[in-house]
């Protein structure tokens, strides 16, 4: 158990180091001189040299890397090359917005996927199950931003029930906040829900074939009772894993959704920084998302170690 835990932590740390080196190398070494990029090709050598000094670009790469990592670890990633304002608070602000989106998207997905997936599995040979299954296939094929555009057309443009875009912090105006959150969260959640439905279905189908469920039936439980009492808990394990791993998809999906609904989240920050050639901010946001994904993977592994006794003893 302890050995496994240490092993997982070592893998996490190694992954973080390697991915940070990759991101840093990619952004810092390849594009040439960031100061030149910021100032444009017509800038004088003196101006470029001055900017290089200001951002510490004249230091050796290893020093630059270490100070970048130090900045990330201490939540103080320094100033933007373009706006010369601190990046940390900006990212924190934007992250809040994105977390609202991702969180509510995930809730919508669960509310949709868990009951539907179970129904689809239980009725997988009946017409109703097949129709639901076909519908979920269609749902998987619709990109979240398309769902967003279509929902704007229907609920904002056609009926005028909800605002087409914008963002208000919940403290300022809770009602408007919820109204503006509704469509983006739904578009993320519906599509993610369609994907999740298929995982729930296949997890429940797997469980339905298990011997212990047959035993439960033989004991005299009705199929629904047997599934509720013995099946769902077992089916939940892979579903929870997938849910956690979908965080990456949701984070990336929110990048596009933020653009559709004009929401000032992390994704908008990333896209704006790319168009402003604000490479440090791009580097930080990319690293942040990658770190989040690696951390979630790590946590899933740890939770598994804790709940599944087989993994504790058996070495691979």
């Amino acid at each position, binding site marked *: 158990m302890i050995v496994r835990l240490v092993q997982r932590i070592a893998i996490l740390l190694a992954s973080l180091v390697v991915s940070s080196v990759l991101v840093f190398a990619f952004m810092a070494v390849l594009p040439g001189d960031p100061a030149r990029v910021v100032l444009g090709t017509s800038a004088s050598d003196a101006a470029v040299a001055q900017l290089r000094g200001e951002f510490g670009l004249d230091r050796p790469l290893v020093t630059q890397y270490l100070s970048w990592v130090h900045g990330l670890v201490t939540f103080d990633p320094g100033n933007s090359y373009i706006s010369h304002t601190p990046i940390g608070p900006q990212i924190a602000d934007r992250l809040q917005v994105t977390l609202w989106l991702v969180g509510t998207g995930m809730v919508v997905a669960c509310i949709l996927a868990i009951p539907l997936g179970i129904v689809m599995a239980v009725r997988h040979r009946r017409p109703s199950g097949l129709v639901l299954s076909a519908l979920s296939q269609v749902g998987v094929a619709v990109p979240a931003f*398309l769902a967003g555009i279509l929902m704007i*057309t229907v609920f904002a443009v056609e009926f005028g029930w909800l605002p087409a875009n914008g963002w208000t912090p919940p403290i300022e105006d809770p009602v408007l906040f919820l109204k503006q959150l509704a469509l983006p969260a739904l578009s993320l959640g519906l599509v993610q829900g369609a994907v999740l439905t298929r995982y729930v279905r*296949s997890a429940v189908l797997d469980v339905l074939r298990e011997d212990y469920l047959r035993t439960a039936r033989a004991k005299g439980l009705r199929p629904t009772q047997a599934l509720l009492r013995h099946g769902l808990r077992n089916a939940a394990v*892979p579903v929870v894993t997938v849910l956690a791993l979908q965080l990456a998809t949701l984070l*990336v999906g929110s990048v596009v959704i933020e653009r559709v609904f004009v929401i000032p989240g992390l994704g908008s920050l990333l896209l704006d920084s*790319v168009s402003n050639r604000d490479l440090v901010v791009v580097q930080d946001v990319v690293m942040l998302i990658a770190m989040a994904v690696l951390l979630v993977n790590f946590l899933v592994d740890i939770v598994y170690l804790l709940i599944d006794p087989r993994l504790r003893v058996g070495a691979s």
Partner: protein
Amino acid sequence: MSAVDKALDKAQDNAQDTKAAVASAVPEGRRRRRPMPGSLLVGGLIVSLVFGMALLSFVWTPHDPTLVDASVRLQKPSPEYWFGTDKFGRDVFSQILMGSRTTLFVGFVAVGVAALIGVPLGIVAGMAPHWFGELLMRGNDLVLAFPALLLTIMFSAVYGAGTLVAMIAIGIASIPHFARLIRGGTLQVMKTEYVLAARAAGRGPFSIALRHVLPNVSSLVIVQASVGFAIAVLAEAALSFLGFGTPPPTPSWGRMLQESQEMLSIAPRLAVFPGVAIAVVVLGFNLLGDGLRDRFDPKLEDRR
């Protein structure tokens, strides 16, 4: 294999019972012919239709898809303009036809990059000593932390946005899916008696990989290619929507959607046509992948 790997492999609807798939790829001599799965039929039809559209666009489109003509702005669908025209007076149907080319092209290159690197990587990871295989798989997990969209945005920040950058970035992001799957298949093949026999006969690892492993995991490659194609199409659409994909004037469904957004109150149909096109293509490749999997893997038939 970490717990995540295990759970993922088990839970993934796409994930295959590799053992069964490999077993079915092994010639059995007297395999009964089964009826073609419906998903294979529908998926195959949709995919052929899209290929047909792309081929057709080389010889014929009703109008020049890039021709800007202010006098016919925002026309409703008519016998002249089947899907109407956009805000620049360009024929939407012609753009959809031409856009299918972009979509397929991006899909092909992305899946090609992913398979060309991912398949050998998976085979090596499956045949190499255990520790080395595990090391490669950890590297794999690392790449998974950079989803296609993120990777493309990062690449675009450095090299500038464009179709080539998008295709390669989507391809790189898809490598882990291939590698993980093929490694699983390879591990199964390596346990078989014919590999043992080949090794006893003095065949080197390279020869075994080419003669025994690759043919036996090829069904997995085909299935993953189909599913990967769907993922690439989705990614390309999202990227073009964000302005990181195909640059104008080359028609692209994702960019058509982006351009339609400001016209939603006047002409929502401009969003519907490219939107439906994207969804149908993705659905087609997903169904094709599912159908092929059922075909290759009799044991899973019951599930879908």
